[in-house]
């Protein structure tokens, strides 16, 4: 299409049969995409259900499913109340510890009973690094 053809095209060249044909392509295509993705959505939802069920039964899935176990996170916070920390922002600390434990437990049900601060482990860590830097024969 060139500049000279443009007014002609816009005004006359698009026949109604062509438009109807294009409309058919539009409707079919859009419905097709909706149906295919709806099918995928359904399959994915079903698969999700199956996976959730197997997780409840087995509970040994490597990447845990927290929504299947909503209780632990909720339980963790109140359980962390009696924390006796070093006088800093205890709520934040409890939340961080609860989140870390939740990640480590990979979503398995758990309850935090107490949080105690350990001794400063810098010397121990230094020793560990020195030892681990040598290959034991």
């Amino acid at each position, binding site marked *: 299409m060139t500049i000279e053809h443009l007014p002609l*095209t816009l005004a006359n060249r698009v026949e109604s049969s062509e438009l109807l044909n294009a409309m058919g392509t539009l409707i079919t295509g859009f419905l097709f995409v909706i149906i295919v993705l709806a099918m995928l959505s359904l399959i994915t939802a079903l698969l999700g259900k199956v996976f959730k069920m197997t997780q409840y039964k087995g509970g040994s899935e490597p990447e845990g499913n927290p929504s299947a176990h909503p209780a632990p996170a909720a339980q963790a916070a109140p359980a962390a109340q009696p924390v006796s920390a070093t006088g800093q922002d205890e709520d934040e600390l409890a939340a961080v510890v609860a989140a870390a434990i939740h990640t480590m437990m990979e979503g398995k049900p758990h309850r935090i009973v107490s949080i105690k601060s350990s001794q400063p482990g810098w010397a121990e860590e230094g020793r560990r690094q020195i030892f681990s830097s040598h290959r034991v024969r």
Partner: protein
Amino acid sequence: MELIVELYQNTGFGLIDWRMLFMWFIALTLLYLAVFKQFEPLLLVPIAFGALLANLPTRGLINKPAGEVRSPVDGVVIQVLQQEGDLIRLPAVLRRLPQTVSDLDAETLEILQNTDEPVSISGVPLLFIVRSDVHMDEIADITRLHPDDQLVFAEASGRLVNVSVEEGDDVFAGQVIDEIYSEHGGGLFHYIQLGVILEIFPPLVFLGVGALTDFGPLIANPRTLLLGAAAQFGVFATFMGAIIAGFGKDAAGAIGIIGGADGPTSIFLANALAPELLAPIAVSAYSYMALVPIIQPPIMRALTTQDERKIKMKSIRQVTRLEKLVFAIVVTVVCILLVPAASPLIGMLMLGNFMRECHVVDRLSKTSQNEIINIVTIFLGTSVGITMTGDRFLQVDTLIILFLGLVAFGISTASGVIMAKAMNLFFKNKINPLIGSAGVSAVPMAARVSQVEGQKADPNNFLLMHAMGPNVAGVIGTALVAGYFISVLGGAH
């Protein structure tokens, strides 16, 4: 003095015209936007630099290699204008050439009708004139030219050998009618561009995109696949708009896909259906993707109430590795069974994703995420840019395509938002309609826009992960639409 004149003639100054200068301006504007405004710089820099190269009188950069010359149509050879042994030499700057006799000026037509002189247009020798869809016995007078007669020009420099047809011979489309021989090969970008022409680069980019994409949010909330589907309405609506604007069906399909906001898919489809429109379509797609944060928010705000924008969605569950692997396989099998033409895109997307999620081929996954996608992006961008020659790009068509692309983008955004609102009528767990707009692909920019708009309504609302669902669904949706268009409009090979 003669030496100075010869020296000047060997430089490229004499070949510069206003179109080139205008394209330099466009290229520099794109470079400015990429470098100083950071609008999709990873793509705009190679595209803009390619455009600059395309509009310089280069040598050994884009020229085609010598080889066979084929008939473009079934029909009869009306005129043979060059003889075996003639030396063909193409100019450094190739202009857009006329395709039929009706495109020729009166003077050239006069020479063709009444003399045996060889004819060149913009320095490119005309080799043959072929009349389509007829047989020799149907032609009364072969010396009279017809406005629809096809012109066949030389595409490479070299010596004309093996002229295998004479005036009056019947030929079929693709038949070798002569050969240009040269010891020199084609230009650098002739070979790099083969990655686009042979449809290799877009699927390779999809491999990287798959390796970079986490389908977890989509698997955790499969309803969002519908948002990705709804956003494809913009593609189809623009397809209709392009038909009304006078484009053919193939071109209309390729233009419509801009609404999918997926660069590689746009290039893939444009190359399959309307290769001559590749440059404006690619530039339009990437420009609007860069402008997502400007185009989408007004549409999103216009279609939603403050309360809707404040909807907080339930936090999404974590998805297991096995679930992600099964999803990759299921999408591959279902999509390819339903739309075989989408196989290169969907297949590579899901291969990349499977490598990412299986956690046993980290080296391959990382290579896809970094080296492969980076290398291909350089070549893809420059290959698109190199097609932006002034005489091809500075057309009314380009402006119409840019406008239609914008319409496509707007309708896609609106469709996603409206679909989310419609789904809220049926589902108990409400969806924030702002994530509907992320159904246009533009990963992850569109999802980020949903997040930003959500936070404007409620600073404690975090929509990013929810918006990633429709965002990646949009990638699958656009690839399916591309496959659908190729199947229906006949671009399949």
